[in-house]
């Protein structure tokens, strides 16, 4: 059967859905094909891609069998019923460990499903496993995972981006057609950019955060990680929409994202006004990144879009504001890891009858990695009396200024565009001991989180210097997620014509390493 179907793992989710509907394959067959691919190339912390922290062959195949029974009975639950998916290890899953890439949650199995996971299960998507990430989503390289880094499928000596490097690498290396990620400052879009995949941060409140282990509640959003814009739209429509269990969930239906992606794929950008953000590019950005970005903008112009330069002066302060707001929120969020109700409990050495507080201190030292400790301490500082107004208070005002910049820009243009990240994937280890250099990877993605607006990253080509993927970012006003899909799909179609296919087809073949 595999000869007639070719390599099922190379197909997009939309193609797999069509094949299932036409009876050309079964969910069991294609779930097994992805499990085989994982077994062949994912490897471990030492070798291979290492996109997954946990793989669940039995659970995925049981879900696939149930899906095939629904198909046979003529009652599929959803268009994507039977198409397998990978889930970032920060979303709770009953029966599957959820570690957030941290030792403090080693082996923890949550007693409830995140709402997005409930929706995946109700729609019949077999869950292949949980993907690697920087500890508690703090990082831009996945090197801060307590379980070892994920490697970029384009070059295994380089970072896959972060924090959602596992989800992006899994999709880029054909281990999963779909994945879920979370984006607090760029953790879906930046990994998408450096792995040549598509990632979307929805409007804040557009997708439920119930069951998402919070990093920074006012910034976190769940979103799709895929190889095509259409696949992201299909997944986003499935998991999005109001959830009464999340009080910040927007009580409005998700706009027509699949329709917008199809409209964009047909090259329909005539009359669209596109703003290039002056502050997100230029000097200090990798020349090969800027060259691919400029070409993508030219392609939009050639297709009939109107392009102007737009200034968002407050964006230069976005990174500083973000690295005060995020640590402040995460230092209070992570106070819940107190060794009392769940997770790791470490007894301090040489103490006969330790107190709860002593156990808490010892556990948090043993259970948290360097980056988590850095941010908790920074947040504790930013929130301490005497410094609160100068740091946290000021950062909240910058947030207002950034929202105003977006509002002013969207009076002139329909969407804003920029490169997704200032550089291509850097070598593993290069920035591990220079946190500030690591933080700069999120320069272009952070403003959207501070303002709550949606953004997409689509592949823009390979940089001349190193032959590695470059991402093109599209930002739209809050609740206008359909615009990022329309423009993202247009860029994908226009550049795909030039490349003669998907960018990922140019990625090197991975060696089999086993798992």
């Amino acid at each position, binding site marked *: 059967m595999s000869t007639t179907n070719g390599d099922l793992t190379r197909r997009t989710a939309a193609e797999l859905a069509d094949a299932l509907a036409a009876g050309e394959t079964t969910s069991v067959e294609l779930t097994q094909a992805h499990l085989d691919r994982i077994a062949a190339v994912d490897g471990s912390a030492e070798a291979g891609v290492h996109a997954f922290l946990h793989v669940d062959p039995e659970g995925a195949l049981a879900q696939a069998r149930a899906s095939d029974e629904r198909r046979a009975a003529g009652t599929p639950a959803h268009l994507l019923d039977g198409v397998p998916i990978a889930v970032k290890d920060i979303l709770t899953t009953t029966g599957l460990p959820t570690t957030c890439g941290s030792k403090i949650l080693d082996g*923890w*199995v*949550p*007693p*409830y499903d995140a709402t997005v996971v409930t929706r995946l299960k109700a729609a019949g998507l077999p869950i292949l496993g949980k993907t690697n990430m920087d500890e508690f989503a703090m990082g831009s390289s996945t090197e801060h995972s307590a379980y070892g880094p994920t490697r970029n499928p384009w070059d295994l000596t380089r970072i896959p981006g972060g924090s959602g490097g596992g989800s992006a690498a899994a999709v880029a290396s054909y281990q999963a057609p779909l994945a879920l990620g979370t984006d607090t400052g760029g953790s879906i879009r930046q990994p998408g950019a450096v792995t040549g995949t598509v990632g979307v941060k929805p409007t*804040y*409140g557009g997708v439920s955060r119930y069951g998402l282990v919070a990093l920074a509640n*006012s910034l976190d959003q769940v979103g799709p990680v895929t190889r095509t814009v259409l696949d992201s739209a299909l997944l986003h429509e499935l998991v999005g929409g109001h959830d009464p269990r999340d*009080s*910040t969930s*927007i009580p409005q239906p998700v706009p027509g994202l699949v329709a917008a992606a199809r409209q964009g794929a047909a090259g329909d950008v005539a009359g669209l006004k596109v703003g290039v953000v002056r502050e997100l590019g230029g000097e200090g950005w990798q020349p090969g990144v800027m060259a691919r970005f400029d070409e993508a903008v030219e392609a939009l112009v050639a297709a009939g879009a109107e392009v102007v330069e737009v200034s968002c002066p407050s964006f230069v*302060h976005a990174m*500083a*504001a973000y690295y*005060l707001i995020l640590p402040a929120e995460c*230092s209070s969020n992570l106070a819940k890891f*107190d*060794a*009392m*109700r*769940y997770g790791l409990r470490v007894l*301090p050495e040489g103490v006969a*009858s*330790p*107190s*709860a*507080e*002593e156990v*808490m*201190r*010892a556990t*948090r*030292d043993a259970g*948290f990695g*360097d980056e988590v*400790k*850095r941010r*908790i*301490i*920074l947040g*504790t*500082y930013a929130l*301490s009396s005497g410094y609160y*107004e*100068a*740091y946290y*208070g*000021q*950062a*909240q*005002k*910058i*947030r*207002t200024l950034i*929202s105003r910049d977006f509002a002013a820009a969207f009076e002139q243009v329909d969407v804003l565009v920029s490169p997704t990240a200032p550089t291509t994937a850097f070598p593993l280890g290069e920035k591990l*001991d220079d*946190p*500030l250099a690591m*933080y700069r990877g999120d320069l272009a993605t952070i403003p959207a989180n501070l*303002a709550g607006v949606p953004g997409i990253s689509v592949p823009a080509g390979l940089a001349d210097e190193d032959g590695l993927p470059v991402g093109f970012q599209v930002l739209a006003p809050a609740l206008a997620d359909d615009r990022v899909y329309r423009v993202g799909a247009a860029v994908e179609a226009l550049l795909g014509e030039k490349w003669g296919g998907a960018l990922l087809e140019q990625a090197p073949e991975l060696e089999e390493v086993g798992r």
Partner: protein
Amino acid sequence: MAAMPDTPPALTREDVAHLADLARIDLSDAELDHLAPQLSVILESVASIQGVAGDDVPPTSHPLPLTNVFREDVVTPSLSAEEALAGAPAVEQQRFSVPRILGDEQ
């Protein structure tokens, strides 16, 4: 509230030890040596926002202007005691078992 200096004082090793104490993390001497200079560099960088926004700019704590989200007050199924305790480090008599919470002198 007094105006802050343009450049924040560098975080000393003792400052970081104090902050770690407030955050209930036992840092080792090696960690303090490692983290203190890194935190000073980060702090110096983020301090660039001081004075950028004037008093007339209101703070934003959240991207959505939502207040008071209500729902119907109805009972729905929730976790059983066994499920809630399943991840606990120690359990006794269907409760979380924790170390002593009072100090010797108390």
